[in-house]
C-alpha cells in the first residue's frame, strides 16, 4: 500500500511542479518525478510481499508467489522512454535559454492565441 501512496505522492508532486514552478529545469524535474511515480506504480502492481523473482531457475518455486514479470518489463520500457524524453527536453531547454536568455516559463510565450 505504501508503494501506491508513494507513487501517487510522487505523481502529485510532479504535477505540482509542472503547474506551479516557473523554472524550466524545475518543470523537467517535475516531469521526471511524475514519471518515476508512474514507474513505481507499475512495479508495485506486480509486487507481491515476499515474492520471488519470476525466474523458473529452480523447480519447486510457487508461480503464485512470483512477482509479476510483465510490469517490470513495462517499467524498463517506460524508463527508457522517460530517459530519452528527458534528454530531448534538456536539449530544448538549452536551446530555449540561447534564444530567450531566460529559463522563466512565463517569459517564453511568443506563440499564443
Amino acid at each position, binding site marked *: 500500500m505504501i508503494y501506491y501512496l508513494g507513487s501517487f505522492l510522487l505523481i502529485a508532486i510532479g504535477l505540482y511542479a*509542472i*503547474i506551479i514552478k*516557473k523554472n524550466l529545469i524545475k*518543470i523537467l524535474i517535475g516531469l521526471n518525478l511524475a514519471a518515476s511515480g508512474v514507474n513505481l506504480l507499475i512495479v508495485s502492481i506486480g509486487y507481491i510481499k515476499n515474492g520471488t523473482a519470476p525466474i523458473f531457475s529452480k523447480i519447486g518455486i510457487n508461480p503464485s508467489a512470483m512477482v509479476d514479470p510483465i510490469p517490470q518489463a513495462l517499467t524498463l520500457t517506460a524508463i527508457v522512454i522517460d530517459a530519452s524524453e528527458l534528454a530531448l527536453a534538456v536539449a530544448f531547454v538549452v536551446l530555449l535559454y540561447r534564444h530567450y536568455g531566460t529559463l522563466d*516559463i*512565463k517569459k517564453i*510565450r511568443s506563440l*499564443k*492565441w
Partner: protein
Amino acid sequence: MNMSLELLLATPFIGGLLTYIGGKVHRWVRNIFAVLFSLLTLGEMSLFYNTTFKGDVWGSLFGSKLILQTNPITWLFLLIVTSISLLVIVFSVDDMKHEEDHIVLDSYYMQLLFVEGAMIGIVLAGDLITFFMFWEIMSWTSYFLIVHGGKKSMDAGYKYIIMSIIGAYAMFVAIAMIYSKAHSLVYPDVALVLSQSSPTFTIWIIILLGVGFFVKAAVMPLHTWLPDAHSEAPSPVSPLLSGVLIKMGAYGLFIIFYGLMSANLAKNIMPSIFSTPVLLYIVQWLAALSIVLATFLAIMQEDAKRLLAYSSISQIGYVVLGLATGTSLGVAGGLFHALNHAIFKSLLFLAVGAVIYRTGTRNLSDLGGLVKKMPFTFVALVVGIIALAGVPPLNGFVSKWMIYEALLQKKEVFLLIMAFVGSTGAFLYVYRLVHSIFLGQLSQKHENVKDVPILMQIPMWVLVIATVIYGIFPGLAMDVIVKGMKMFGFAPIAYNLYGFPQGSTMGALKVINIASVLMISFVVAWIFFLLFSKSRKVSQYDNYAAGQVVTPELKYNYSFGFYMSFGRVIKPIFKISIERIYNYWVDAAKIFGDYYMRRVYTGNLETYNSYIVIVVTIAAAAVLLGGKIW
C-alpha cells in the same frame, strides 16, 4: 431520350473543361467553344419543350436515389438559364477583351459554363440531394465570377459566398431532417412524408429551406449581398446573376410551396389569412417589403449597376409575391415575371455593361448625353426600362398585371398597394438611369465614344425582341406555364395569345390592342408633327441659362442626387439599416470569439498544463461519483 437529360446536364460542364483547354490553343478557339457549347445546351434544352420525365436515375447516394426530371415549369427555367447564359457568353467575347491575363479569361468562360451547368442541375434535379449539390456548386462557381480583383469586388464576393453558405446550410439542415424521416429525398417521397408529418416539422422544413432560397432570391432581410455582388461583378456576369441566378431562389420557393407541399397541404396545417396559409402570407409580406424598400433604395443610388441591383431585389419581390399567392393566376404571374425579369434585367445590365465598356465608369453623375453616341444601346436600355417599369405594352406589364389581378381577387389589398407603389417608384429610378446615362449633357471626355461592337449588340437585340414579343403575345409563355402548373395541381387559367379574357380575372387584358392603338396614335401624332415647319438642330450648349452663355467647361447638368428632395421624405426609413444590424452582430460575435474564445490559448505552458490536470480531475471525479455528472 432517357440519356439526354444527363447529356443536357453534362454538356456545359464538359464544355467548360474543353473551353479551358481550348484557351490554351488560341483565344478564338476558346471563344468559339464557349459559344458553341452554350448554343448546344440551348439546343438540347429546346428538345424538351412540352415534355415530361418523372425521374431518370443517374446515381444513388447513401441509399437515396439521385434523379433528374423535367416538366414544363423546369423547361421555363431552363429556357431562362440557357438562353441568358448564351447571350452573356456572346456578350463577353468582346466585353472581356481588355483582360490580358489569359488564364483568367480561360477560367472565366469555364466558370460561366459551370454556373450554367449547375443551374441546369438545380432545375433538373428530381431529389433534394441533387438539388442541394448543384446549389452549392452554383454558389461557389458564381463566387469566382463575381470576384475579379480589387478590394470592393473582393468584399462583395466574400459577403456573397458567406451568405450563400449560411443559406445553403439552412437548407442542409432541412434536407437532413427530411432524410431522417423519409430515408429518401426524391420529391414525391418527400411530399408524401411531409403530408404525413406533424405541422411543426413541416413548418420548420419550410422555414429552413425558405431561408436558403431567400438568400439566393435576395428577399428583404437576407438581401444584403446582392447590391454589392451585382454591382461589383464584371458587366457580363451581372445579367447572369441578376437575371438567372436569383431566379433559382424563386424556383426553389416554387418547388417547396407547390412541389413538396401542395397548397392544400399548407392550408391544412396552418391557419389562413386571406385564404393564404400564414407562412405564405408572411412570405408575401416579406416580398412586398422587398418591393417597396428596395425601390426606395434604388431611387437613391448613384451607381448604375447598384441601382439595377436594388431594382432586382424589388422585382424578385414581385416574383415571390406572385408565387406565394397560391392562386393559379398569381403563381402563373410570378413564374411569368421570373421569365420577364430575366429578359429585361439582363437587357438592362447588358446595356449598362455596354456603356461601361465604352466609358469605363458606372457612376451616374459622370455620364450623360450618350444618346447621340450610342443610339443602339439607348434603344435597348429604353426598352428595358419600359418593361421594368411595367408600362404596357412590354412584357413586364403583363406579369405585373397578372399578379395585381391575383392579389385583387384575393382581396390582399395592402400587398397590392405595396406592389403598386414599388412599380410607381420604378418610374423614378428607371428614369434616373436613362436620364443620367443617355440624356442630359454629354461630357467632353465622352466626345469620341462609339456604339459597342456588333457582338455586344446582338445579345441586346435578341433581348429587345424577346421583350416585345413576350409583351404583346403573353400567350406564348402562358402555354408553357399553364401546362406545367397543371402538373402541380393548379386550376388552368383562361388565356389566349394576346392576354386574358374576362372570366378568370376581375378584368381582362389584351395587350395587342394597347400596342396597336399606341402605335397608331404615335404614328398619327408623328405625321401631324411633321406637317409643321422642320426643326433645326442646335448644339447642347445652345441652351437656356437665363441668358448666360453655356460653355463646354461648365458642367451644365443635373445628375447628382437626382431625387434628393425625395430622399428627404424617405429619410426616416433609412435610419434602420438591415446591413448595419447584421454588421453589429457579426462584430459582436467577432469580438466574443477574439477576446473570449481564442484567448484560451494563452501561450503559457502552465495554463496548458493546468487544463490537462483540470480535465483529468473532472473526469476522475466524474467517474468516482459514479458517472452522475452527466
